[in-house]
């Protein structure tokens, strides 16, 4: 208000005898009033997540999981599922139909469904935390180059004809490497650390994508190139227990780290100076979030290829449901992301006689979905 000093103002305080404006709390409050105030405070801070959200999100995921078992060339009904699992762990020798049911459940459906659920939750949580940290609702989890990095690693593995496990480990490692380089390059921009990170991510992504193109150029057109191209589109079609074993530990570490930082993410999204003046070690919190999101994204890309859009859309949907508070946003985003990706994966394997790469479907479904949320979301972001 630049005109303030022009106003012929003001003023009313005789020097020396200030009004006692804040009557000191101790003397004025008796115990009953203090207790009443505590109740009032507790009620004001009572969390009001709608019950239907609390119940519908987990119940929805469970429902979709059961439906996913039933869908496909070999349908497994919920009763058969329970039956099959019980028999598997009783250690009975199985034969005939029972054996094939057991194989379908444990070698095909469970790995695939669990993997889809984990990847959906991972990409959504990583996206939500990056959007909060970068204070930008249009950021996706591969901003710092995790996808491009993992992509290059996987392509190299495929080109050299490595085993699947080795290829996945390579993809995971190069994903981490790419983000590491982006974080290192961050030092170039001294005045704005977040901008430096974004810039580093863009440069590293470009670099690693160029690397991927070189690998494709070198690949045998009849044999290697199609497998590389197909992998880059993203798919769960080959999902098995080994994928699950590779993914599970980094995923759990990532989920735990992100959930531990959920409150600090709120503070961090207020901006660097404010977060620090509120007592947050911004450097450390930012690094923890980057490490967690990178673990989640890299391992997702390593086991399933590049699956776009989900890490961008799902946090928005979750924010529209439960608001921007990361304490509620992160669990909601994970549940929604898992359910959404599972639905899309069901389409991917059942829509046509051949398997459709899921990355194509998430993009095809994602664009109109995003347009609709954008149109109706008035409170999700300002």
């Amino acid at each position, binding site marked *: 208000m630049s005109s303030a*000093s022009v106003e012929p103002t003001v003023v009313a305080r005789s020097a020396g005898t*200030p009004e006692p404006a804040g009557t000191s709390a101790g003397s004025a409050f008796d115990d009953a009033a203090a207790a009443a105030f505590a109740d009032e405070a507790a009620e004001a801070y009572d969390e009001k997540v709608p019950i239907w959200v609390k119940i519908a999100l987990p119940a929805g995921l469970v429902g979709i999981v059961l439906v996913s078992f039933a869908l496909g060339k070999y349908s497994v009904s919920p009763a058969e599922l329970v039956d099959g699992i019980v028999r598997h762990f009783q250690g009975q020798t199985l034969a005939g139909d029972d054996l094939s049911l057991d194989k379908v459940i444990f070698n095909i459906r469970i790995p695939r469904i669990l993997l889809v659920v984990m990847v959906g939750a991972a990409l959504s949580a990583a996206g939500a935390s990056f959007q909060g940290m970068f204070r930008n609702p249009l950021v996706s989890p591969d901003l710092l180059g995790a996808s491009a990095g993992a992509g290059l690693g996987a392509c190299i593995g495929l080109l050299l004809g490595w085993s699947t496990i080795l290829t996945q480990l390579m993809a995971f490692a190069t994903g981490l490497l790419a983000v590491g380089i982006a974080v290192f390059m961050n030092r170039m921009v001294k005045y704005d650390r977040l901008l430096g990170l974004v810039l580093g991510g863009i440069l590293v992504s470009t670099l690693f994508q160029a690397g991927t193109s070189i690998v494709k150029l070198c690949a045998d057109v009849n044999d290697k190139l199609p497998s590389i191209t197909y992998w880059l589109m993203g798919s769960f079609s080959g999902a098995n227990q080994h994928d699950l074993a590779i993914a599970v530990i980094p995923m759990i570490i990532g989920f735990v780290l992100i959930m531990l930082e959920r409150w600090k993410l709120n503070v961090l999204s207020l901006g660097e100076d404010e977060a620090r003046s509120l007592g947050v070690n911004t450097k450390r919190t930012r690094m923890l979030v980057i490490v967690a999101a990178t673990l989640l994204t890299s391992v997702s890309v390593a086991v399933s290829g590049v699956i776009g859009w989900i890490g961008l859309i799902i946090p928005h949907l979750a924010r529209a449901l439960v608001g921007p508070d990361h304490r509620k946003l992160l669990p909601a985003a994970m549940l929604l992301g898992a359910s959404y990706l599972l639905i899309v994966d069901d389409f991917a394997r059942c829509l046509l006689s051949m398997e459709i790469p899921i990355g194509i479907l998430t993009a095809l479904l994602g664009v109109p979905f995003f347009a609709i949320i954008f149109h109706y979301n008035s409170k999700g972001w*300002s």
Partner: protein
Amino acid sequence: MLEVRDLRAGYSADNEIVHGISFSLADGEFCCIIGANGCGKTTTLKTVLGLLPRLGGEVLINGRETAQMRERELALHFAYIPQIHQLPFPYRVKDMVLMGRTPHMARLAAASADDKRVAYAALCQMAIEDLADKSYTELSGGQQQLVLIARALAQQPDILVMDEPTASLDFGNQQLVLSRMRGLADCGTSVLMVTHDPAHAFYCADRAIVLHEGVILKDGAPTDVITAETMLEIYNTEVRVDRVDVGEGRTGCACIPIVRKSALDERLLAELMRGKS
């Protein structure tokens, strides 16, 4: 007790803005920093808070060097009330205020019942408890400023640091905020406030520091420091400072600029109006 000794500050070593200033702030003291744009007010605040790296000098709280404190310990001493700004996400008012409790929370713990109680008391103290469930981004500028002040109160700091907290408030809300700040100072919280309006210093400060080109020009009681000569020197503006009887035996001071009709350049005026019928 805050002591600043020979503080040099700026955005880089070859761009020093504040050239060695010293002052101290007693418990419960209300101090305004005034000065022209670019004189180093905000730089001083940010450097004292540790948000900008120091180029030299010492900042001590109760005799302890702040450079050796972690963010969290600093946040238990200092609360910073920034100018209001756009937030990317629409947090609810009560959550914004609860964020003030962050330095009090154990590293991995969530907000306790006591944290919520303190935050609610801060909301009530600023008389915004009715806004608790509203989105911060939907509030008016004045309400947002009250929320930020409530958040600072929830932090239970020894020293409140404010950068033009009244810049976006209407006339009534300015006095409301300032009188609340004054009340806090009377209860023992020190206040360090940057302001553009000399009237605010008269209204609520015990002390005014006039910053001019990176050094302290004057330091003392507002009535001694804010004089026609000082104002002319730092703002290049002629003012009259007058005592006003405001009733009930109290006097206030007013700093009134003597506005002269500014002469616009005739030739440039003609250029400006070119083509306008």
